[in-house]
Protein backbone atom coordinates (compact mmCIF):
# COMPACT_ATOMS: atom_id res chain seq x y z
CA UNK A 1 0.00 0.00 0.00
CA UNK A 2 2.82 2.36 0.93
CA UNK A 3 4.57 1.38 -2.30
CA UNK A 4 1.49 2.30 -4.34
CA UNK A 5 1.30 5.68 -2.57
CA UNK A 6 4.96 6.35 -3.31
CA UNK A 7 4.65 5.38 -6.98
CA UNK A 8 1.59 7.62 -7.31
CA UNK A 9 3.52 10.50 -5.74
CA UNK A 10 6.55 10.03 -8.00
CA UNK A 11 4.31 9.75 -11.06
CA UNK A 12 2.45 12.92 -10.07
CA UNK A 13 5.73 14.82 -9.68
CA UNK A 14 6.99 13.60 -13.05
CA UNK A 15 3.66 14.54 -14.66
CA UNK A 16 3.83 17.98 -13.07
CA UNK A 17 7.29 18.67 -14.40
CA UNK A 18 6.82 17.20 -17.85
CA UNK A 19 4.74 19.03 -20.44
CA UNK A 20 3.11 17.67 -23.57
CA UNK A 21 5.35 19.87 -25.67
CA UNK A 22 8.43 18.31 -24.17
CA UNK A 23 9.08 21.18 -21.77
CA UNK A 24 10.55 20.20 -18.41
CA UNK A 25 10.02 22.45 -15.42
CA UNK A 26 12.91 22.92 -13.08
CA UNK A 27 13.52 24.67 -9.79
CA UNK A 28 15.20 27.50 -11.65
CA UNK A 29 12.12 28.49 -13.58
CA UNK A 30 10.52 31.78 -12.69
CA UNK A 31 7.64 31.93 -10.22
CA UNK A 32 5.32 33.31 -12.91
CA UNK A 33 5.99 30.35 -15.16
CA UNK A 34 5.30 27.93 -12.35
CA UNK A 35 2.20 29.88 -11.36
CA UNK A 36 0.68 29.88 -14.81
CA UNK A 37 1.71 26.45 -15.99
CA UNK A 38 1.64 24.29 -12.92
CA UNK A 39 -1.13 25.79 -10.83
CA UNK A 40 -3.57 26.51 -13.63
CA UNK A 41 -2.90 23.69 -16.12
CA UNK A 42 -0.82 20.77 -14.94
CA UNK A 43 -1.77 20.48 -11.27
CA UNK A 44 -5.54 20.17 -11.84
CA UNK A 45 -4.90 17.66 -14.61
CA UNK A 46 -2.55 15.55 -12.48
CA UNK A 47 -4.86 15.64 -9.46
CA UNK A 48 -7.87 15.03 -11.70
CA UNK A 49 -6.24 11.94 -13.19
CA UNK A 50 -5.43 10.60 -9.73
CA UNK A 51 -8.99 11.18 -8.54
CA UNK A 52 -10.69 9.88 -11.70
CA UNK A 53 -8.51 6.76 -11.59
CA UNK A 54 -9.25 6.26 -7.90
CA UNK A 55 -12.99 6.58 -8.56
CA UNK A 56 -12.80 4.08 -11.41
CA UNK A 57 -10.75 1.65 -9.28
CA UNK A 58 -13.30 1.93 -6.50
CA UNK A 59 -16.19 1.49 -8.95
CA UNK A 60 -14.47 -1.55 -10.46
CA UNK A 61 -14.09 -3.24 -7.09
CA UNK A 62 -17.73 -2.52 -6.24
CA UNK A 63 -18.87 -3.96 -9.60
CA UNK A 64 -16.77 -7.11 -9.32
CA UNK A 65 -17.82 -7.83 -5.74
CA UNK A 66 -21.47 -6.97 -6.32
CA UNK A 67 -21.79 -9.18 -9.39
CA UNK A 68 -19.29 -11.79 -8.14
CA UNK A 69 -17.66 -11.56 -11.53
CA UNK A 70 -13.98 -10.70 -12.01
CA UNK A 71 -14.74 -9.36 -15.49
CA UNK A 72 -17.34 -6.85 -14.31
CA UNK A 73 -16.45 -3.19 -14.70
CA UNK A 74 -18.09 0.02 -13.48
CA UNK A 75 -19.48 0.82 -16.95
CA UNK A 76 -21.94 -2.04 -16.66
CA UNK A 77 -25.62 -1.18 -16.48
CA UNK A 78 -25.37 1.31 -19.34
CA UNK A 79 -24.05 4.28 -17.38
CA UNK A 80 -21.38 5.12 -19.97
CA UNK A 81 -23.82 4.96 -22.89
CA UNK A 82 -26.32 7.09 -20.96
CA UNK A 83 -23.70 9.75 -20.30
CA UNK A 84 -22.57 9.63 -23.93
CA UNK A 85 -26.11 10.11 -25.25
CA UNK A 86 -26.74 12.98 -22.84
CA UNK A 87 -23.57 14.77 -23.96
CA UNK A 88 -24.52 14.25 -27.63
CA UNK A 89 -27.97 15.71 -26.90
CA UNK A 90 -26.43 18.71 -25.18
CA UNK A 91 -24.28 19.47 -28.22
CA UNK A 92 -27.22 18.81 -30.56
CA UNK A 93 -29.16 21.44 -28.62
CA UNK A 94 -26.35 23.90 -29.27
CA UNK A 95 -25.11 24.21 -25.68
CA UNK A 96 -21.57 23.48 -26.77
CA UNK A 97 -21.51 26.62 -28.92
CA UNK A 98 -22.58 28.99 -26.15
CA UNK A 99 -20.48 32.15 -25.77
CA UNK A 100 -19.87 31.24 -22.11
CA UNK A 101 -17.55 28.22 -22.04
CA UNK A 102 -18.04 27.64 -18.31
CA UNK A 103 -21.79 27.28 -18.80
CA UNK A 104 -21.22 24.82 -21.64
CA UNK A 105 -18.88 22.79 -19.42
CA UNK A 106 -21.19 22.77 -16.41
CA UNK A 107 -24.09 21.82 -18.69
CA UNK A 108 -22.13 18.98 -20.26
CA UNK A 109 -20.97 17.60 -16.92
CA UNK A 110 -24.45 17.83 -15.45
CA UNK A 111 -25.98 16.20 -18.54
CA UNK A 112 -23.45 13.34 -18.45
CA UNK A 113 -24.19 12.75 -14.78
CA UNK A 114 -27.97 12.77 -15.39
CA UNK A 115 -27.56 10.50 -18.43
CA UNK A 116 -25.59 7.95 -16.41
CA UNK A 117 -28.15 7.99 -13.60
CA UNK A 118 -31.09 7.66 -16.03
CA UNK A 119 -29.43 4.72 -17.79
CA UNK A 120 -28.97 3.04 -14.41
CA UNK A 121 -32.64 3.65 -13.58
CA UNK A 122 -33.67 2.09 -16.92
CA UNK A 123 -31.50 -0.96 -16.24
CA UNK A 124 -33.04 -1.41 -12.80
CA UNK A 125 -36.55 -1.03 -14.21
CA UNK A 126 -35.92 -3.43 -17.08
CA UNK A 127 -34.46 -6.23 -14.96
CA UNK A 128 -38.01 -7.31 -14.23
CA UNK A 129 -39.77 -8.46 -11.08
CA UNK A 130 -38.47 -11.07 -8.70
CA UNK A 131 -36.45 -11.22 -5.53
CA UNK A 132 -32.83 -10.24 -5.84
CA UNK A 133 -31.88 -13.43 -3.97
CA UNK A 134 -32.81 -15.47 -7.01
CA UNK A 135 -29.75 -16.98 -8.66
CA UNK A 136 -30.57 -15.38 -12.02
CA UNK A 137 -31.36 -11.92 -10.64
CA UNK A 138 -27.85 -10.66 -11.35
CA UNK A 139 -27.94 -12.11 -14.83
CA UNK A 140 -31.22 -10.24 -15.43
CA UNK A 141 -29.67 -6.98 -14.26
CA UNK A 142 -26.56 -7.48 -16.37
CA UNK A 143 -28.65 -8.31 -19.44
CA UNK A 144 -30.82 -5.25 -18.80
CA UNK A 145 -27.64 -3.17 -18.58
CA UNK A 146 -26.37 -4.56 -21.89
CA UNK A 147 -29.72 -3.83 -23.58
CA UNK A 148 -29.83 -0.28 -22.20
CA UNK A 149 -26.21 0.30 -23.32
CA UNK A 150 -26.98 -0.96 -26.82
CA UNK A 151 -30.19 1.05 -27.21
CA UNK A 152 -28.70 4.28 -25.86
CA UNK A 153 -25.58 3.76 -27.99
CA UNK A 154 -27.77 3.29 -31.04
CA UNK A 155 -29.66 6.49 -30.23
CA UNK A 156 -26.37 8.38 -30.03
CA UNK A 157 -25.36 6.87 -33.38
CA UNK A 158 -28.66 7.91 -34.90
CA UNK A 159 -28.28 11.45 -33.63
CA UNK A 160 -24.74 11.63 -35.01
CA UNK A 161 -25.93 10.21 -38.33
CA UNK A 162 -28.61 12.90 -38.59
CA UNK A 163 -26.28 15.67 -37.41
CA UNK A 164 -22.76 14.80 -38.67
CA UNK A 165 -21.30 17.96 -37.10
CA UNK A 166 -21.79 16.27 -33.70
CA UNK A 167 -19.29 13.58 -34.58
CA UNK A 168 -16.26 15.45 -33.34
CA UNK A 169 -17.80 16.14 -29.90
CA UNK A 170 -18.93 12.56 -29.60
CA UNK A 171 -15.57 11.25 -30.70
CA UNK A 172 -13.76 13.35 -28.10
CA UNK A 173 -16.08 11.98 -25.43
CA UNK A 174 -15.82 8.38 -26.61
CA UNK A 175 -12.02 8.43 -26.75
CA UNK A 176 -11.63 9.71 -23.20
CA UNK A 177 -9.84 13.01 -22.56
CA UNK A 178 -8.04 14.13 -19.44
CA UNK A 179 -6.84 17.40 -20.95
CA UNK A 180 -10.03 19.26 -20.08
CA UNK A 181 -9.91 18.62 -16.32
CA UNK A 182 -9.91 21.92 -14.47
CA UNK A 183 -10.06 22.91 -10.80
CA UNK A 184 -13.86 22.69 -10.77
CA UNK A 185 -13.70 19.08 -11.92
CA UNK A 186 -11.01 18.33 -9.33
CA UNK A 187 -13.12 19.65 -6.45
CA UNK A 188 -16.20 17.77 -7.62
CA UNK A 189 -14.29 14.51 -7.96
CA UNK A 190 -12.49 15.05 -4.64
CA UNK A 191 -15.73 15.51 -2.71
CA UNK A 192 -17.31 12.58 -4.57
CA UNK A 193 -14.33 10.31 -3.96
CA UNK A 194 -14.12 11.09 -0.25
CA UNK A 195 -17.83 10.42 0.21
CA UNK A 196 -17.77 7.20 -1.81
CA UNK A 197 -14.58 5.98 -0.15
CA UNK A 198 -16.06 6.43 3.33
CA UNK A 199 -19.30 4.75 2.25
CA UNK A 200 -17.38 1.86 0.67
CA UNK A 201 -15.35 1.35 3.85
CA UNK A 202 -18.56 1.35 5.89
CA UNK A 203 -19.95 -1.31 3.53
CA UNK A 204 -16.81 -3.45 3.43
CA UNK A 205 -18.45 -6.23 5.45
CA UNK A 206 -21.42 -6.25 3.07
CA UNK A 207 -19.01 -6.76 0.17
CA UNK A 208 -17.24 -9.52 2.13
CA UNK A 209 -20.53 -11.27 2.74
CA UNK A 210 -21.81 -10.80 -0.83
CA UNK A 211 -18.71 -12.35 -2.34
CA UNK A 212 -19.52 -15.52 -0.39
CA UNK A 213 -22.91 -15.66 -2.08
CA UNK A 214 -26.22 -13.94 -1.59
CA UNK A 215 -27.75 -16.62 0.61
CA UNK A 216 -24.72 -16.56 2.90
CA UNK A 217 -24.91 -12.76 3.03
CA UNK A 218 -28.62 -12.93 3.88
CA UNK A 219 -27.94 -15.55 6.54
CA UNK A 220 -25.47 -13.12 8.14
CA UNK A 221 -28.26 -10.63 8.75
CA UNK A 222 -28.08 -8.32 5.75
CA UNK A 223 -31.19 -7.19 3.90
CA UNK A 224 -29.75 -8.00 0.52
CA UNK A 225 -32.07 -5.90 -1.67
CA UNK A 226 -31.32 -2.76 0.37
CA UNK A 227 -27.58 -3.36 0.45
CA UNK A 228 -27.43 -4.12 -3.27
CA UNK A 229 -29.35 -0.93 -4.09
CA UNK A 230 -26.85 1.12 -2.08
CA UNK A 231 -23.87 -0.54 -3.75
CA UNK A 232 -25.33 -0.10 -7.25
CA UNK A 233 -25.93 3.60 -6.51
CA UNK A 234 -22.34 3.99 -5.29
CA UNK A 235 -21.00 2.26 -8.39
CA UNK A 236 -23.09 4.47 -10.68
CA UNK A 237 -22.07 7.65 -8.83
CA UNK A 238 -18.38 6.83 -9.15
CA UNK A 239 -18.76 6.15 -12.89
CA UNK A 240 -20.93 9.17 -13.57
CA UNK A 241 -18.51 11.52 -11.82
CA UNK A 242 -15.60 10.32 -13.94
CA UNK A 243 -17.42 10.00 -17.26
CA UNK A 244 -18.86 13.49 -16.86
CA UNK A 245 -15.38 15.02 -16.69
CA UNK A 246 -13.21 12.77 -18.82
CA UNK A 247 -15.44 10.82 -21.19
CA UNK A 248 -15.03 7.09 -21.50
CA UNK A 249 -11.82 5.83 -19.90
CA UNK A 250 -11.75 2.12 -20.58
CA UNK A 251 -10.27 -0.75 -18.58
CA UNK A 252 -9.03 1.16 -15.50
CA UNK A 253 -11.99 0.05 -13.37
CA UNK A 254 -11.74 -3.51 -14.62
CA UNK A 255 -7.99 -3.73 -14.20
CA UNK A 256 -7.33 -2.02 -10.85
CA UNK A 257 -8.73 -4.83 -8.63
CA UNK A 258 -6.78 -7.45 -10.64
CA UNK A 259 -3.54 -5.53 -10.16
CA UNK A 260 -3.76 -5.40 -6.37
CA UNK A 261 -5.57 -8.61 -5.42
CA UNK A 262 -2.46 -10.86 -5.56
CA UNK A 263 -0.69 -8.58 -3.09
CA UNK A 264 -3.43 -8.00 -0.54
CA UNK A 265 -4.07 -10.35 2.33
CA UNK A 266 -7.54 -10.00 3.73
CA UNK A 267 -10.99 -9.17 2.49
CA UNK A 268 -12.47 -5.88 1.27
CA UNK A 269 -11.34 -3.34 3.84
CA UNK A 270 -7.72 -3.18 2.66
CA UNK A 271 -8.77 -3.81 -0.96
CA UNK A 272 -10.86 -0.64 -1.16
CA UNK A 273 -7.90 1.68 -0.59
CA UNK A 274 -5.59 -0.51 -2.68
CA UNK A 275 -7.98 -0.50 -5.67
CA UNK A 276 -8.39 3.28 -5.46
CA UNK A 277 -4.60 3.71 -5.42
CA UNK A 278 -4.12 1.23 -8.27
CA UNK A 279 -6.77 3.05 -10.36
CA UNK A 280 -5.10 6.39 -9.64
CA UNK A 281 -1.73 4.94 -10.62
CA UNK A 282 -2.99 3.37 -13.86
CA UNK A 283 -4.78 6.48 -15.10
CA UNK A 284 -1.90 8.78 -14.14
CA UNK A 285 0.52 6.55 -15.99
CA UNK A 286 -1.75 6.47 -19.04
CA UNK A 287 -2.10 10.26 -18.94
CA UNK A 288 1.65 10.73 -18.73
CA UNK A 289 2.19 8.41 -21.68
CA UNK A 290 -0.63 10.07 -23.61
CA UNK A 291 1.13 13.42 -23.24
CA UNK A 292 4.64 12.26 -23.99
CA UNK A 293 4.59 9.31 -26.40
CA UNK A 294 3.93 11.37 -29.56
CA UNK A 295 5.13 14.77 -28.45
CA UNK A 296 4.03 17.40 -29.22
CA UNK A 297 0.81 15.68 -30.27
CA UNK A 298 -1.34 14.26 -27.50
CA UNK A 299 -3.10 10.89 -27.72
CA UNK A 300 -6.55 10.52 -26.11
CA UNK A 301 -6.00 8.92 -22.70
CA UNK A 302 -8.92 6.52 -23.14
CA UNK A 303 -7.24 5.00 -26.18
CA UNK A 304 -4.07 4.29 -24.23
CA UNK A 305 -5.88 2.81 -21.24
CA UNK A 306 -7.75 0.50 -23.60
CA UNK A 307 -4.57 -0.72 -25.30
CA UNK A 308 -2.37 -0.95 -22.19
CA UNK A 309 -5.19 -2.25 -20.00
CA UNK A 310 -6.21 -4.89 -22.48
CA UNK A 311 -2.67 -6.21 -22.88
CA UNK A 312 -2.04 -6.10 -19.15
CA UNK A 313 -5.24 -7.97 -18.40
CA UNK A 314 -4.33 -10.64 -20.94
CA UNK A 315 -0.92 -11.01 -19.31
CA UNK A 316 -2.51 -11.33 -15.87
CA UNK A 317 -4.95 -13.95 -17.10
CA UNK A 318 -2.11 -15.90 -18.68
CA UNK A 319 -0.10 -15.85 -15.44
CA UNK A 320 -2.97 -17.14 -13.35
CA UNK A 321 -3.34 -20.92 -13.12
Amino acid at each position, binding site marked *: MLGLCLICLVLALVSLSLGSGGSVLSLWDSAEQIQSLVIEVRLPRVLGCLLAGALLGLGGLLAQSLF*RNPLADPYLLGTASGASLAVTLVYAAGLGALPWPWLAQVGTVFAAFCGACLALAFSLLLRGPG*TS*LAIDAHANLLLAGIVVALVLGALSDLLTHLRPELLRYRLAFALGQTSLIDWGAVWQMLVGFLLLFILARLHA*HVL*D*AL*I*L*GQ*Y*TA*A*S*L*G*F*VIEKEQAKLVAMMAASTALVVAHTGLIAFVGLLAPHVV*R*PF*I*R*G*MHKPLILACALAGALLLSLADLLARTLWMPQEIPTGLLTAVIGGLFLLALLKRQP
Partner: protein
Amino acid sequence: MANMPIRPRTKAAPPALLRVKDLSLSRGAPSLRQPFSFDGLAGWLAVIGGNGIGKSTLLLSLAGLLGEAKSKVLIPQDGSKGVTWIALDQLSAPQRARSIAWMGQSEALSGRWLVADVVALGHLPWRKTTLRDVSGQQGGLASVPGCADNKLATLDSSLAPGQSWKAALGLERL
Protein backbone atom coordinates in the same frame (compact mmCIF):
# COMPACT_ATOMS: atom_id res chain seq x y z
CA MET B 1 -43.09 -37.03 5.39
CA ALA B 2 -46.24 -35.07 6.14
CA ASN B 3 -46.78 -34.16 9.81
CA MET B 4 -44.08 -36.52 11.07
CA PRO B 5 -41.88 -35.41 14.00
CA ILE B 6 -38.25 -35.92 13.11
CA ARG B 7 -36.32 -37.32 16.04
CA PRO B 8 -32.67 -38.23 16.31
CA ARG B 9 -31.80 -41.56 17.93
CA THR B 10 -31.50 -40.52 21.57
CA LYS B 11 -32.99 -42.04 24.68
CA ALA B 12 -34.73 -38.93 26.03
CA ALA B 13 -36.45 -36.69 23.51
CA PRO B 14 -34.54 -33.39 23.32
CA PRO B 15 -36.40 -30.08 23.06
CA ALA B 16 -37.60 -28.83 19.70
CA LEU B 17 -35.43 -26.09 18.17
CA LEU B 18 -37.50 -25.53 15.08
CA ARG B 19 -41.15 -25.95 14.21
CA VAL B 20 -42.41 -26.15 10.65
CA LYS B 21 -46.11 -25.61 9.99
CA ASP B 22 -47.78 -26.31 6.65
CA LEU B 23 -44.67 -25.62 4.62
CA SER B 24 -44.78 -26.52 0.94
CA LEU B 25 -41.88 -26.04 -1.43
CA SER B 26 -42.03 -24.68 -4.95
CA ARG B 27 -39.37 -27.16 -6.13
CA GLY B 28 -38.40 -30.70 -5.33
CA ALA B 29 -40.20 -34.00 -4.80
CA PRO B 30 -44.04 -34.09 -5.00
CA SER B 31 -44.25 -34.91 -1.27
CA LEU B 32 -42.46 -31.63 -0.49
CA ARG B 33 -44.87 -29.66 -2.67
CA GLN B 34 -47.75 -30.69 -0.41
CA PRO B 35 -48.04 -28.87 2.96
CA PHE B 36 -46.06 -30.69 5.64
CA SER B 37 -45.22 -30.02 9.27
CA PHE B 38 -42.58 -31.28 11.68
CA ASP B 39 -40.57 -30.39 14.75
CA GLY B 40 -36.79 -30.28 14.38
CA LEU B 41 -35.29 -31.55 17.65
CA ALA B 42 -31.92 -30.69 19.18
CA GLY B 43 -29.05 -32.82 17.92
CA TRP B 44 -27.73 -33.76 14.51
CA LEU B 45 -30.19 -34.15 11.71
CA ALA B 46 -29.33 -35.22 8.18
CA VAL B 47 -31.43 -34.64 5.11
CA ILE B 48 -30.73 -37.25 2.47
CA GLY B 49 -32.17 -37.87 -0.97
CA GLY B 50 -31.39 -37.97 -4.67
CA ASN B 51 -30.48 -35.11 -6.96
CA GLY B 52 -33.22 -32.53 -7.43
CA ILE B 53 -35.41 -33.91 -4.68
CA GLY B 54 -35.39 -30.59 -2.82
CA LYS B 55 -32.78 -30.96 -0.05
CA SER B 56 -31.19 -27.56 -0.61
CA THR B 57 -34.55 -25.85 -1.07
CA LEU B 58 -35.78 -27.39 2.18
CA LEU B 59 -32.72 -26.21 4.11
CA LEU B 60 -32.94 -22.72 2.58
CA SER B 61 -36.59 -22.60 3.64
CA LEU B 62 -35.76 -23.71 7.18
CA ALA B 63 -33.13 -20.96 7.41
CA GLY B 64 -35.70 -18.37 6.35
CA LEU B 65 -33.82 -17.50 3.18
CA LEU B 66 -36.73 -18.15 0.84
CA GLY B 67 -39.13 -15.28 1.40
CA GLU B 68 -42.43 -17.13 1.06
CA ALA B 69 -41.39 -19.84 3.54
CA LYS B 70 -40.50 -17.50 6.40
CA SER B 71 -44.00 -17.45 7.88
CA LYS B 72 -44.13 -21.26 8.00
CA VAL B 73 -40.97 -21.75 10.07
CA LEU B 74 -41.09 -20.98 13.78
CA ILE B 75 -38.36 -20.81 16.39
CA PRO B 76 -38.69 -20.78 20.19
CA GLN B 77 -38.27 -17.53 22.08
CA ASP B 78 -37.83 -17.40 25.86
CA GLY B 79 -40.12 -14.83 27.46
CA SER B 80 -41.78 -14.04 30.76
CA LYS B 81 -44.58 -16.47 29.91
CA GLY B 82 -42.20 -19.30 29.09
CA VAL B 83 -41.32 -20.43 25.60
CA THR B 84 -43.36 -18.97 22.76
CA TRP B 85 -43.02 -19.82 19.08
CA ILE B 86 -42.34 -16.99 16.68
CA ALA B 87 -42.37 -17.09 12.87
CA LEU B 88 -39.14 -16.11 11.12
CA ASP B 89 -40.88 -13.33 9.14
CA GLN B 90 -41.58 -11.55 12.43
CA LEU B 91 -37.86 -11.20 13.11
CA SER B 92 -35.56 -8.58 11.63
CA ALA B 93 -32.75 -9.85 9.41
CA PRO B 94 -30.09 -9.53 12.18
CA GLN B 95 -32.42 -11.19 14.72
CA ARG B 96 -32.98 -14.09 12.34
CA ALA B 97 -29.22 -14.32 11.71
CA ARG B 98 -28.59 -14.56 15.46
CA SER B 99 -31.05 -17.44 15.70
CA ILE B 100 -30.26 -19.57 12.65
CA ALA B 101 -26.96 -20.10 10.87
CA TRP B 102 -26.69 -21.37 7.32
CA MET B 103 -23.70 -22.42 5.27
CA GLY B 104 -23.90 -23.05 1.54
CA GLN B 105 -22.34 -25.88 -0.40
CA SER B 106 -19.97 -23.82 -2.50
CA GLU B 107 -18.73 -20.72 -0.72
CA ALA B 108 -15.85 -19.45 -2.84
CA LEU B 109 -13.22 -18.98 -0.16
CA SER B 110 -10.17 -17.15 -1.48
CA GLY B 111 -6.85 -18.45 -0.25
CA ARG B 112 -5.65 -14.89 0.42
CA TRP B 113 -8.30 -14.12 3.00
CA LEU B 114 -7.23 -13.98 6.61
CA VAL B 115 -8.72 -16.75 8.73
CA ALA B 116 -9.52 -14.06 11.30
CA ASP B 117 -11.54 -12.08 8.73
CA VAL B 118 -13.58 -15.12 7.71
CA VAL B 119 -14.28 -16.03 11.33
CA ALA B 120 -15.15 -12.40 12.12
CA LEU B 121 -17.81 -12.48 9.40
CA GLY B 122 -19.65 -15.09 11.43
CA HIS B 123 -19.99 -12.56 14.22
CA LEU B 124 -21.56 -9.87 12.03
CA PRO B 125 -25.10 -10.49 13.33
CA TRP B 126 -23.79 -9.33 16.71
CA ARG B 127 -22.00 -6.45 14.96
CA LYS B 128 -18.74 -7.75 16.38
CA THR B 129 -16.25 -7.53 13.60
CA THR B 130 -12.87 -6.75 15.07
CA LEU B 131 -10.16 -9.25 15.73
CA ARG B 132 -10.39 -8.60 19.46
CA ASP B 133 -14.11 -9.42 19.36
CA VAL B 134 -13.68 -12.81 17.77
CA SER B 135 -10.36 -14.07 19.06
CA GLY B 136 -10.57 -16.27 22.10
CA GLN B 137 -14.33 -16.70 21.97
CA GLN B 138 -16.05 -19.99 21.47
CA GLY B 139 -16.50 -20.35 17.71
CA GLY B 140 -13.85 -17.68 17.28
CA LEU B 141 -10.29 -17.70 16.01
CA ALA B 142 -9.14 -19.99 18.82
CA SER B 143 -11.40 -22.73 17.49
CA VAL B 144 -9.50 -22.94 14.20
CA PRO B 145 -6.49 -25.25 14.61
CA GLY B 146 -3.16 -23.51 14.29
CA CYS B 147 -4.64 -20.03 14.10
CA ALA B 148 -5.21 -19.11 17.73
CA ASP B 149 -1.80 -17.45 17.91
CA ASN B 150 -1.48 -16.42 14.29
CA LYS B 151 -3.73 -13.49 13.54
CA LEU B 152 -2.27 -13.04 10.04
CA ALA B 153 -2.86 -16.64 8.92
CA THR B 154 -4.44 -16.85 5.49
CA LEU B 155 -6.68 -19.66 4.36
CA ASP B 156 -4.21 -21.15 1.89
CA SER B 157 -0.93 -20.54 3.72
CA SER B 158 -1.96 -21.88 7.09
CA LEU B 159 -4.78 -24.31 6.67
CA ALA B 160 -5.26 -27.69 5.11
CA PRO B 161 -8.35 -27.88 2.89
CA GLY B 162 -10.42 -29.40 5.69
CA GLN B 163 -9.37 -26.65 8.03
CA SER B 164 -10.60 -24.00 5.59
CA TRP B 165 -14.02 -25.43 6.14
CA LYS B 166 -13.42 -25.29 9.86
CA ALA B 167 -12.87 -21.55 9.42
CA ALA B 168 -16.04 -21.38 7.38
CA LEU B 169 -17.79 -23.21 10.18
CA GLY B 170 -16.47 -20.47 12.46
CA LEU B 171 -18.08 -18.11 9.97
CA GLU B 172 -21.39 -19.77 10.68
CA ARG B 173 -20.77 -19.98 14.44
CA LEU B 174 -21.38 -23.70 14.73
